[in-house]
């Protein structure tokens, strides 16, 4: 138990993945501390989303080891990692679009409680699960739209549902893949304040493009370039780092 407390929430050692000659992750040593507010940034094609896919098990690593709270999870499948509290959201909404908002979250809560495979009782009989899902919607200010199909909601609201589904799994480690992607910057404050309110029991890794959002949320930043970690440190240090400037300015010039 003591070991579990001191071990990082998530750790990768020598994590690598290549598709033929293309290397999307090479030898990544990464630590996400307990209760962290950590951002993973980098230019387009740096391998940020690939990193998420490797950690969650959607992609199989070519090499290296992944630890969750000190336990080796490299060999585990995606579902088993979720059961251990490793949860992600998606850069582009990955929701059950024609199902109502409440059902989107209910499906997640039901899986967490291990009743998703029950085929004999109507799902409506699981009152406690529906209650919990609705409670989540209330905290996120989505309750008034609970019975609307997700695809009837504005995109910004859908981004909130995206996170609500993840929270229904009671994550210990939450990987937010560009949580504010696709919504006007004026509306992103709703998302930011919601993320700020998340329990400090959850270790957060925010994969982001938007520097403004990163500097408002993160206490630690890792910069990924071409599948490698370029530099790591607190926001001030990263903002001042000339190599990071080069990467971002270089990219801007190429546009």
């Amino acid at each position, binding site marked *: 138990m003591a070991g579990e407390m001191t071990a990082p929430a998530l750790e990768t050692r020598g994590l690598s993945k290549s598709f033929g000659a293309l290397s999307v992750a090479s030898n990544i040593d990464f630590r996400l501390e307990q209760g962290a507010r950590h951002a993973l940034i980098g230019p387009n094609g740096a391998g940020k989303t690939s990193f998420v896919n490797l950690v969650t098990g959607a992609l199989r690593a070519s090499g290296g080891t992944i630890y969750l709270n000190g336990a080796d999870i490299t060999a585990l499948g995606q579902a*088993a990692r*979720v059961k251990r509290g490793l949860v992600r959201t998606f850069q582009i909404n990955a929701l059950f679009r024609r199902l109502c908002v409440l*059902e989107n979250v209910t499906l997640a809560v039901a*899986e967490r409680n291990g009743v998703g*495979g029950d*085929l004999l009782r*109507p799902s409506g009989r699981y009152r406690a699960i529906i209650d919990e899902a*609705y409670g989540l919607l209330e905290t996120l200010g989505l*309750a008034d739209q609970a*019975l609307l199909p997700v695809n009837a909601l504005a995109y910004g609201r859908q981004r909130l549902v995206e996170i609500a589904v993840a929270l229904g799994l009671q994550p210990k480690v939450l990987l937010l893949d560009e949580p504010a992607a696709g919504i006007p910057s004026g509306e992103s404050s709703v998302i930011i304040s919601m993320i700020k309110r998340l329990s400090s029991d959850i270790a957060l890794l925010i994969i982001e493009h938007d520097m403004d959002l990163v500097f408002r949320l993160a206490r630690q930043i890792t910069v990924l370039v071409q599948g490698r970690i370029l530099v790591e440190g607190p926001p001030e240090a990263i903002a001042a780092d000339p190599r990071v400037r080069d990467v971002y300015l270089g990219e801007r010039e190429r546009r």
Partner: protein
Amino acid sequence: MAAADARAAAIDAFARRHRFRALEAVPWLLALAAYGVFPGYLPLGAQILATILFVLSADLVLGYAGIVTLGHAAFFGTGAYTAGLLAANGWGEPLSGLVAAALIAGLVGFLSGLIILRTTGLALLMQTLVVATTLYEAANKAGRWTGGDDGLSGMVVWPIFGVFRFDMFGRAAYTYSLAVLFLGWLLARQIVHSPFGRSLTGARENTARMHAIGAPVAQRRLIIYTISAGLAGVSGALIAQTTSFVGLTSLSLERSGNALIMLIIGGVGRLYGAFIGVPLFMIAQDRFSKADPVYWYFWLGLLMVAVVIFARGGVLGIFERLWKWPGK
């Protein structure tokens, strides 16, 4: 206080979706009425009822689980030959024949699903076709037992419960098919509203997300594929027993394809699409083939084109647009 009321109302509405609605009694009342109104059409009626069960089983995999298939006749035919071979070889007890058909067809569904459900989309579509074609050719080659091209005859089906004889007017066949369809529908309805059924719908809507919330998607797809195969097998056995004949067409691509057409006409993924699409299709088939023996398939095709262009979501889709259909 208002928030608490809204909360209770929303949760209640959501939690009650599985309750029976008055509208759901309509198909059963119509089926019972048809027994009295069209006594001359009971043999056709029995076939329609059994085919509804077949299309309903296809709806479970296609409409709810999103597994596209062009080979569902594999299970229908397996069930038909199972019941047929039993009855032709000295065991004509119908109910145990249905159970045997469900088990064997379910087994074929499980074993083939184990292999082919690893793929999706077009590859999966082709593999379902391969499974059905393989069984078709196997039944064709095994002419010694199946009668091959000539079909399996010589079936002797015993009375139901040892009492109700299959009569030439189709009264027993109709009642028997109706009762079995009712039980099959109850099972399908139960599954669709269960957390298992909802999670299949979730996987249909977004497979990646279903994986990401920790659901064993492949395992659940295999389970529903097996159940659906078993139900399709029961449907095949019903038609075999009520017509005392099994032909190679029970395994044919035409039967698989027709099931899809009937489902699309009625409405996919709505549980009741089969109840509308099958009677429409089979009655149209019956009428058209009498009115125009040469070109009747053309009129059927025209009907299909009209549905696809003007009535997306099938006939039920039209109703849904006219007024909010409950229980989606």
